[in-house]
């Protein structure tokens, strides 16, 4: 991440010692975590695999949310604080469309069909909301000082929370799930049906997204806009529409994540989005923000870490899981702000 060129130049000699210390601490932390994982694996291999599967399921959902952060950050360098709440609205929309309107039950073929239809509807709704917020607020602030769009995003996050509160009520609500309980039994290990469905839905979505960004004209326009808005505009790209399209993609992913979350955990809460969004953002940063593969990798890693922490015999347990994730975020910012797959950038002056 961006140390400005000037800062790097004038602080290099002073920093050398500190950089060494930082790298040393970073490596020590990694080694510690590895030892901890091996120790846990030896203590209970079956539990380890089960926990890893649960972590993977969570990680797939995080990856979908993290993609929204990374897409938007990649193109206009804005941390979209409202994105987590968009995901929350995705889960609330799902509960309304799937359960209240369609009246879906559990497990019949018709229910699966309804779930697919709902997936499309919810993705469209979230994409629409995200475009609207871009059109109403962020677009006008694109040339404003950095603080302005950030504060706006926080405000939009609050408005989304209000919307969720209005639709869902102030308490946590439980909903019937289309995906039945139980799972595929392989010897001592059980793979939940929900894990399988989450993977089955997530992977094609990621492939489609990657195809759009890498192979289509629109994707090319997105990449060009991300590199240099002015040059892209000179090349005849409609920058506003491209950015709106990016917001739509991110919103659609958040909608899908909302549906999968509801189908996995069966609950909605109006304030769920804030914390999950923060975790997903951590995932995006871990992978290298602005990098699509990085967001997926980071999402899966954070999901695994949270799963391990919650479920392993020597973990801190669930009540500390958010603290663990946010500590990772802070450590990451200190030791490797560019993330695993990201490149250190030089800030444009």
């Amino acid at each position, binding site marked *: *991440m961006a140390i400005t060129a000037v800062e790097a130049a004038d602080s290099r000699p002073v920093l050398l010692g500190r950089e060494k210390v930082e790298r040393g601490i970073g490596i020590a932390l990694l080694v510690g975590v590895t030892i901890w994982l091996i120790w846990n694996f030896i203590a209970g291999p079956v539990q380890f695999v089960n926990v890893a599967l649960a972590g993977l399921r969570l990680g797939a959902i995080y990856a979908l949310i993290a993609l929204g952060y990374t897409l938007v950050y990649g193109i206009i360098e804005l*941390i979209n604080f409202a994105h987590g709440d968009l995901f929350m609205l995705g889960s609330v929309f799902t509960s309304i469309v799937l359960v209240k309107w369609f009246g879906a039950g559990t497990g019949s073929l018709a229910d699966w069909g309804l779930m697919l239809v709902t997936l499309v509807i919810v993705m469209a709704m979230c994409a629409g909301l995200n475009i609207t917020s871009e059109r109403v607020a962020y677009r006008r602030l694109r*040339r404003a000082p950095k603080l*302005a769009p950030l504060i*706006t995003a926080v405000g939009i996050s609050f408005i989304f929370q209000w919307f969720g509160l209005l639709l869902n009520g102030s308490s946590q609500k439980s909903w019937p799930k289309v995906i039945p309980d139980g799972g595929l039994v392989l010897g001592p290990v059980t793979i939940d049906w929900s894990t399988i469905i989450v993977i089955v839905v997530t992977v094609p979505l990621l492939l489609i997204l990657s195809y759009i960004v890498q192979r289509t004209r629109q994707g090319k326009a997105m990449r060009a806009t991300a590199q240099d808005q002015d040059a892209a505009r000179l090349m005849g790209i409609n920058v506003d529409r491209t950015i709106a399209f990016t917001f739509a993609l991110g919103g659609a992913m958040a909608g899908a994540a909302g549906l999968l979350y509801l189908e996995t955990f069966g609950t909605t809460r109006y304030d769920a989005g804030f914390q999950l969004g923060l975790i997903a953002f951590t995932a995006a940063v871990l992978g290298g923000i602005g990098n699509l593969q990085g967001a997926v990798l980071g999402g899966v890693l954070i999901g695994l870490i949270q799963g391990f922490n919650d479920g392993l015999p020597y973990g801190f347990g669930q009540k500390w899981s958010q*603290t663990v994730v946010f500590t990772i975020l802070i450590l990451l*910012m200190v030791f490797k702000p560019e993330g695993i797959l990201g490149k250190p950038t030089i800030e444009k002056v």
Partner: protein
Amino acid sequence: MALSTPEAVETAPAKSDIAASHTRRWALWFAAIAVFVWVFYTFALPNLGSSGQTIVREWMPLGSVNEALVWVICAVGLNIVVGYAGLLDLGFVAFWAIGGYTAGWFMSNFFNQISNGFYFLSAAPPNQPGIHLNVWLVLGLAGLICAGAGIIIGAPTLRLKSDYLALVTLGFGEIIPQVFLNGADIRGFNLTNGALGISPLDNVSPLPFGPSTIAIGDASIAISKPLGPFDTTAKYVMFVLVAAFAVFVSLRIREGRLGRAWLAIREDELAASMMGVPLMRSKLAAYAVGAFMGGLGGVVYAVHNNSVFPDRFNFAISIILLAMVVLGGMGNVWGVIVGALVLAWFNSTGLPQFGDSFNQQFGTDINFPSYNYLFFGSILVLMMLFRREGLFPETRTRQVLQEAERSDAEELDGGEV
């Protein structure tokens, strides 16, 4: 304040003379309004007649004035970080929580695991377990602890770009209350009493020199004896003093070397560093001073509620504080104070009361407090879109915030589609 060295405050004599007289004038206004409110609630209110009293008790009880003062103290602190130095801090609630728990630890029976009864100028009744310090000492202690926490969180993260910094502070603001929530059993040691919180706190005395039972006249009885939890008038005096301190410090620092360094960093970090402003040290100082005031606010909040509970310290507090700073005008202390008073009143009393009256009048059943989110979110968005410099801006802030960042050519092309 440890960080405002004397020479930092005293530099540039010619300019700060004008500024000082300006400050003095405002200080007079501050004192006049504070005394007016005190006189009103102490002497005028009992003579208002019953209907007048009911209106005041419903729409503007002294308790909500006190709570608004707590918000003022914290908003002034956040204004130093966001308004002066231009660093977005979304985790200010962490300092508030740390301050609150400092009060809980050092001003109650809670630490009976450590001490059978340690007293220092405390107004608490004797022969109780736990640690009992004088509230003014606790204020300073909480401020210092928070300033330390601010430095610890700031040191590794302030090198980052502003948006990343916002995220890290947000994470910090989430972690700290969670630590307090989960801290009931840390290797067998009950640090925070978990969700049960710490309650009740010691009685406090509103004036800095410890408990005094000497009564001189009617009014001074009220402010010199140890205060019970419901002694709102005397607490008001105490809160006004703390708020005055916060306002004084932030006004004076702004005129000094440190304050001018902050403004320079806010306006152009690169240019400031070329001019020899030490970026890291100045930013850290902004963080520490802001956190100090967050700590003061935390103690005052704990005294106001006579208790500390972890679930009171939620993310919404950080955002409401931010809304106060943004609404009043980033960087302008007086604007921020007005913003804090108005929004705090609206949040605690105005909106619920308005909702009750509205529902009674029209027979509806709308849950108005749930519109808080919409209200504060809209304030942030609308202010950023239409009046970025706040309702009471300084000329300087307005110029900075309205300057276009990129070329005019782009504006011609991309403005309207």
